[in-house]
């Protein structure tokens, strides 16, 4: 009985932490319409900052807490909102997801650079080892405080959102931004406030969790990501439901990790059990997503009129040949280590290419490319001793089958919820599937198969094969785009309502493109594994897979060559960091920054460069813009003979700080 009580109380405490994190997430979502994937990262950064201040720099507890919770977190949230989130107003889902995922990856990289992993870091509990007894169970003060804080947070936020003027304004901004302006409230202020609150809550959650586990960047981030399940249970809208979801989550984890192993006789539990209890939150997330009511098809969103110029298959083939030739020539020049790095970059590009039909054409954001890549690598290692062409084929078929299976339940989800379900899948595979002895164990070894008797054993040879494989895949993608399936994919992205009205089966198309994407990712994973020869599950982590999305966006997620550019850029950054260790932050943070900057561009870097070139050449298309320069307006609207408008001149004088009162004098009579 005491065990049950103890587990329940611990579960409630964990649930309380999840509640705090999830509430912050729901607040930012309901007031800006953007799901902050980086919520977990903020919590993680706050926890590390607290450790830095309190443990490393010996600043007293309360001061450190105040600095992190009342200064750093709100400022970070408001700054994020102002610089990165506000421009996303009205942007398509995929763009908002890419930007917030970029922030997440960037924060992860930043944290790993500032606080290098390896050294153990411990945060003490509040009032360590002190507590009180309830019905024979010892509850530490820390846990009691946590529970109190969680309850207080939810109550306070509900009061804020429904009874205070600021909260009403926050809800109004989401309803109708223009109308809020017309009511005399600048719509930017409530947004900044809500993001500040959301970040503070994430920070609070991070600090509350930190003493209960070891301080690890990835672990902490994932823990806060676990809170997403609670938020989804609350339909991303209702705070009481979110609280309930968080409690269920905490209790399930607490009881599950104790009672489940007892279900197996003796002490031999299956491989997947530890992973299962760890991944209970994401399983709950998956289930909650599937239990959501079917979202209405959105039709009223403005559609971009411009679609990119799609190259012909012949051009793509020529490009592929060129790429292979360049790889062959380049392999001769580069050092062995560089060939490895660049080869890895190309392989990552190939995995990124799998996202092009899925995310670029069809607009379905997938956050699990590494899950399929890892499966492909493992599949290849199991066939023919780890080095055969049949293995490559299997490396494509197995992920395709898994992808189709996974896609089936998730097919009716759209936009954000689909992305969340892919993230849940990636974490699930990371925790439960990969660590199994039959799969990755510690590491697997692959061999490079021979081609018609030609040994491809050397690094350089395999590098050329990789380039050729990318070229082939790129040609396939272009061919796909030019065909009927490509048109269906673009139609699905542009207007799901339109597709449904013309009788196109959305589910079948999604199934096909998911399977295709998974197959390509599997191929990329297998070839990456062959490039590295020996590879472990650490190369295919869920959070690492976010980098693939980012590099695909950098190069241009709607182009076949985009992911290659992104992969080469990443390889370049890694090589740079090798030669100058001080630049270690470049490959850690670089892709994230670049992806955020380029998120709105269809063609990635090419678009930005093209735009710059056009500006420099001075060619400006179209004389009308929505935010005109008052000076150009001045130029154009005072034709000869029209009287000076004294009021306008006075206004512009004010703009330039001119105080001489010219033009306002009445003409002398």
């Amino acid at each position, binding site marked *: 009985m005491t065990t049950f009580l103890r587990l329940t109380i611990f579960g409630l405490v964990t649930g309380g932490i999840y509640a705090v994190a999830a509430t912050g997430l729901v607040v930012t979502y309901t007031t800006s319409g953007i799901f902050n994937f980086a919520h977990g990262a903020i919590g993680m950064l706050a926890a590390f900052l607290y450790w830095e201040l309190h443990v490393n720099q010996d600043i007293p507890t309360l001061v450190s807490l105040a600095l992190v919770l009342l200064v750093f977190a709100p400022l970070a949230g408001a700054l994020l909102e102002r610089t990165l989130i506000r421009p996303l107003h009205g942007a398509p889902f995929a763009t908002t997801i890419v930007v917030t995922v970029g922030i997440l990856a960037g924060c992860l990289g930043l944290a790993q650079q500032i606080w290098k992993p390896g050294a153990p870091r411990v945060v003490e509990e509040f009032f360590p080892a002190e507590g009180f007894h309830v019905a024979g169970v010892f509850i530490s003060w820390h846990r009691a405080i946590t529970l109190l804080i969680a309850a207080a947070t939810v109550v306070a936020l509900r009061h804020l959102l429904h009874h205070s003027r600021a909260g009403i304004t926050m809800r109004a901004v989401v309803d109708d931004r223009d109308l809020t302006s017309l009511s005399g409230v600048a719509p930017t202020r409530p947004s900044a406030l809500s993001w500040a609150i959301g970040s503070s809550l994430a920070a609070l959650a991070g600090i509350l969790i930190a003493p209960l586990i070891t301080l690890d960047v990835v672990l902490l981030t994932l823990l806060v990501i676990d809170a997403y399940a609670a938020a989804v249970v609350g339909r991303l809208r209702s705070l009481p439901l979110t609280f309930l979801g968080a409690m269920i989550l905490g209790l399930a984890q607490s009881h599950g990790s104790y009672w489940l192993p007892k279900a197996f006789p003796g002490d031999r539990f299956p491989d997947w059990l530890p992973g299962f209890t760890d991944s209970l939150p994401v399983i709950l997330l998956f289930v909650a997503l599937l239990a959501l009511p079917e979202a209405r098809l959105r039709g009223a969103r403005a559609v971009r009129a411009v679609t990119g110029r799609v190259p012909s298959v012949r051009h793509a083939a020529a490009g592929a040949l060129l790429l292979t030739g360049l790889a062959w020539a380049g392999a001769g020049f580069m050092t062995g280590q560089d060939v490895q790095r660049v080869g890895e970059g190309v392989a990552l590009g190939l995995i990124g290419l799998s996202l092009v039909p899925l995310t670029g054409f069809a607009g379905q954001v997938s956050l699990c490319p590494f899950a399929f890549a890892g499966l492909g690598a493992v599949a290849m290692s199991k066939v023919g001793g780890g080095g055969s062409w049949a293995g490559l084929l299997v490396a494509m078929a197995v992920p395709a089958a898994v992808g189709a299976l996974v896609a089936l339940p998730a097919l009716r989800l759209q936009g954000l919820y689909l992305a969340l379900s892919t993230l849940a899948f990636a974490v699930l595979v990371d925790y439960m599937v990969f660590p199994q002895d039959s799969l990755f164990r510690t590491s697997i070894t692959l061999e490079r198969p021979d081609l018609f008797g030609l040994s491809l054993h050397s690094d350089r040879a395999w590098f050329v094969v990789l380039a050729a494989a990318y070229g082939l895949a790129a040609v396939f993608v272009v061919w796909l785009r030019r065909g009927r399936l490509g048109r269906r994919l673009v139609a699905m992205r542009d207007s799901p309502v339109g597709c449904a009205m013309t009788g196109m089966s959305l589910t079948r198309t999604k199934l096909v493109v998911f399977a295709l994407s998974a197959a390509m990712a599997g191929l990329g994973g297998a070839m990456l594994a062959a490039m590295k020869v020996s590879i472990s599950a650490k190369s295919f982590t869920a959070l690492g897979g976010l980098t693939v999305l980012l590099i695909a966006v950098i190069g241009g997620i709607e182009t076949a060559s985009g992911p290659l550019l992104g992969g080469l850029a990443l390889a370049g950054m890694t090589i740079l960091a090798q030669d100058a260790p001080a630049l270690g932050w470049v490959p850690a943070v670089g892709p994230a920054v670049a992806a955020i900057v380029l998120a709105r561009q269809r063609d990635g870097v090419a678009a930005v460069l093209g735009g710059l070139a056009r500006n420099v050449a001075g060619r400006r298309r179209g004389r009308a813009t*929505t935010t005109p320069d008052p000076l150009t*307006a001045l130029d154009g609207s005072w034709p000869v003979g029209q009287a000076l408008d004294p009021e306008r001149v006075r206004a512009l004088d004010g703009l330039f700080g001119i105080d001489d009162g010219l033009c306002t004098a009445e003409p002398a009579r």
Partner: protein
Amino acid sequence: MTAGAARPALELRGVRAAYGSIEVLHGVDLVVPPASVVALLGPNGVGKTTTLKVACGLVTPTAGCVHVAGRHVNGAGAHRLARAGVRTVPEGRGVFPNLTVAENLALASADRRHAATVHERAYARFPRLGERARQSAGSLSGGEQQMLALARALATDPALLLVDELSMGLAPLLVEELYEQVATIAREGVSILVVEQFAHTVLGVAHHAALMMNGRVQFSGPSAEIAGALDAAYLGTTGTGARP
């Protein structure tokens, strides 16, 4: 004549506006004299709503001047203009559907102390709102939503009121009731610009009228004189009144 009476409450001079690269207003001249009701008429799609958006600050004109109370206000943000005293009832029910009636009114008030007076005044003017104070605005009927929108706009005693399509989707009796309210408000000294597609509903209340076609104001003058021009504009009849 005092200085205040000489300056028009709202003046648009040669205003051009565009959405992206598509120009919608091709040089609009419009004057709203102080404490009068001006009706902006015209068929669908000529740019009436855009003109209103320029006047309230949601759209920045690409050329031309917008003067409110004689002051140049191009590019001043909509919320600043609103706070200064330019209130708008936008097209399609200017209410927040997910907030209650009381919350809608609270948001329209300047601060917490003022909110009590705002509620009082609104319920006095529109008793039906008082009965539904805790109901969510999205669940109100069309007429009640429009009443709420009007009440919100009048909450801070504005000097200039801009109304877009008050009659859209409402029963004629209700429309008449609402325009009676508009006339009352005008008598209190508020300058009002009413954008309306159905001329007959508003001409009885308006002092002046302006007719817009193709992004320009084709005719403006006292509302009594506009009837003839309306036929020609809407139906393409000739000046003699012969129907096609």
